[in-house]
């Protein structure tokens, strides 16, 4: 079965023209969506269904810059992965040290209840981490052109994969801490856990 890049006739590069991707997605959908194969035989219908599902998954992974990187890593490493899993890499040490302060704020909130002061501190920490999270994501995406350039030069992009993985791990870790902070601050909407997208 074709990989997601092949589905859209694209090279394995990380910089993608999103407007062109969307146009192609609509085009492929018009061709393969089961709605347009309704009168066809069972075999043709099954094929349309499978192809349409593949096109949808490919679009979902490629349109999002982070999911795109995750997919690329999986592809390069020859693994079959699900969208939700993050590549396993160690969380950078400096980030863990940095988190000590946050953990302390969480402990205080847990032991002494949600005083105004405690929840104020949780909110401030969360704000800071969200900025950090965004920065981590931007940095991840910024490595994209390097990968594309290495590919163009016919060189080896493999060392870059490790950098991607580290950024992804840091990002995933931050996400977990932010969710914990949200929960601790009691701002969890209707018991709904914020969806851990990537």
């Amino acid at each position, binding site marked *: 079965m074709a990989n997601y890049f092949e589905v859209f006739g694209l090279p394995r590069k990380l910089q993608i023209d999103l407007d062109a991707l969307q146009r192609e997605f609509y085009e492929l959908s018009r061709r393969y969506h089961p709605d347009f194969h309704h009168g066809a035989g069972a075999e043709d219908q099954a094929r349309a269904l499978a192809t349409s599902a593949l096109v949808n998954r490919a679009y979902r992974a490629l349109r999002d810059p982070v999911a795109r990187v995750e997919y690329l890593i999986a592809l390069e490493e020859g693994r079959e992965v*699900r969208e939700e899993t993050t590549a396993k890499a160690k969380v950078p040490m400096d980030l863990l040290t940095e988190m000590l302060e946050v953990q302390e704020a969480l402990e205080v909130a847990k032991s002494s209840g949600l005083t105004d002061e405690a929840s104020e501190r949780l909110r401030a920490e969360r704000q800071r981490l969200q900025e950090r999270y965004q920065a981590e994501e931007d940095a991840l995406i910024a490595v994209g052109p390097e990968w594309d350039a290495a590919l163009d030069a016919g060189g080896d992009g493999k060392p870059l994969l490790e950098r991607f993985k580290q950024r992804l791990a840091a990002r995933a870790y931050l996400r977990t801490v932010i969710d914990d902070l949200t929960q601790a601050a009691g701002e969890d909407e209707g018991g709904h856990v914020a*969806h851990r997208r990537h």
Partner: protein
Amino acid sequence: MSRIVGIDLGTTNSLVAYVDGAGVPRVIPDAEGRKLLPSIVAYTPNGVVVGEAARRQLARNAARTVYSVKRFMGRGWDDVREEARHVPFEIVPNAEVVRIRVGDREVTPPEVSAQVLRALKLQAEAHLGEPIERAVITVPAYFNDAQRQATKDAGRIAGLEVLRIVNEPTAASLAYGLQKLAQGLIAVYDLGGGTFDISILRVKDGVFEVLATNGNTHLGGDDFDRAMVQWLLGDIRASHGVDLSTDPETLQELRLGAEAAKCRLSSEERTALTIPFDGFTYRRDITRAELEGLVAPLVEATLGPCRMALQDAGLATGQIDEIVLVGGSTRVPLVRRRVHELFGRTPHSQINPDEVVALGAAVQAQILAGGITDMLLLDVTPLSLGIETLGGIVSVLIPRNTTIPTMAKEYFTTSVDGQTAVDMHVLQGERELAKDNRSLARFDLSGVEAMPAGMPKIEVTFLIDANGILQVQSKELRTGKAASIEVKPTYGLSEAQVTQMVEDSFTYAEEDVNARLLIETKTEAETVLNHVRRALKQADHMIRPDERRSIDQAIDALRAVESGTDRDAIRERTIELNKVTERLAEAMMDAALKGAVGSRRADEILKEK
């Protein structure tokens, strides 16, 4: 190929529509020109009645008249325990599929819905003059797998091949899109009788791409009515000192009164409510402000899902180009106001909010029929799909708001030497723990070849089709053999049960037809008896005593069978009575004519013609 119709199977009303020869979607009216069929089914001792006729049974025959059954579709006892307290019919506590007891019969929600669907099918057949066997049926976007499957089952029981289950807000967007009434980023706010949906779409170049959807399948106009009824009960207790909360028929009267008052308050600032009860008549003026005070928390509850959907779509409220209102409950001014405030834009509803979903379903039917080729709907699955892993944690396979059809693969192995079966638990929902999510089904993978633990590699493919319904396939990779899967739906009917119901529906349909015929025969007998009784009063002196005797005998003979169930006997004796009274009828006719035209006999006059 027969025509495909579009059906909006609503909580309160249902509609059927089709696309006419000119490409215009139209709602199909019944013989009396009514477009909305009340989704009400009355199980009377004389047969099943649907729609307006059933509506009239609501207060009279409360325990056997089922309404709002959509709220019970695909649900188990635990889900509806609270709901069951508010309805006058009896819900049988059954963990998997709730049942409703109507007289000596127990019916499942899909069977009740099938009655509504069958009525719509007949309505469409009468109007179009051709058999209808295929349909597109709409469901709330936030319906889970079991609720969708239950709707499909209902279609089958009604004798319809359900070609597609379409989400209501998406269907509405198709109706708007066909007329180019909505382009760009659209928010469809759909508040119906029992359910709430919000869908965010990108409409561009004929492609209707749903970006995110959210909602609440237990929030709608019914809840508005309920809030009013609770308030009225309190008021009656205070003003008349009576507690009416335990009498089902009274509650039904109150509910109907509240519902009507609610509708009037959409256009009036104040309305009078008058309900006659045993011993007293309850009168009260209600203002729109009072109604708004009662329903405000419910309207507020729709805004959270709107924000969630926007967030999932990665959009801010200000980026939405148009807001479309769907569903009868969006006529409530407070709803319009709050939606306007949330999006900072005036919502619109050029197409009748009661009809727009059915019209959209007809458009989708036309797309499937190949009659429309420039429109394409790309919908999403509303809830994340996952499997239970060690420790009761859910591992998400397909996140919510993924474009469908979609699929995910998962690999399983054995944990004990020689193990030949593996089971897995599939769930839907957004929570991290399995117990907090909606159990979909348990799958038993069997026929795995006996191997040392961890050796088999079983690939399971989860496919969500364009209806939003899950299909599961599995394969053992080492042997390449398809492992057999037994599905045990947690909340739903098994294939065998549905097949049984399809068969039953034929039996019952026959029974229902027989019941109807019996009623007609009895009515006919009653009419003849009344005529004869009146004739004898007027013209007894015109017939001979022996003639009178045979008439009396025929009357007694008919009376002896009239209250029974032997339709043939009733019919025969009715004919017999008609025969023996021929002389009486003639004599009366003569007398009447003599009065008018002198002494000539009736047959003489007739001969002149």
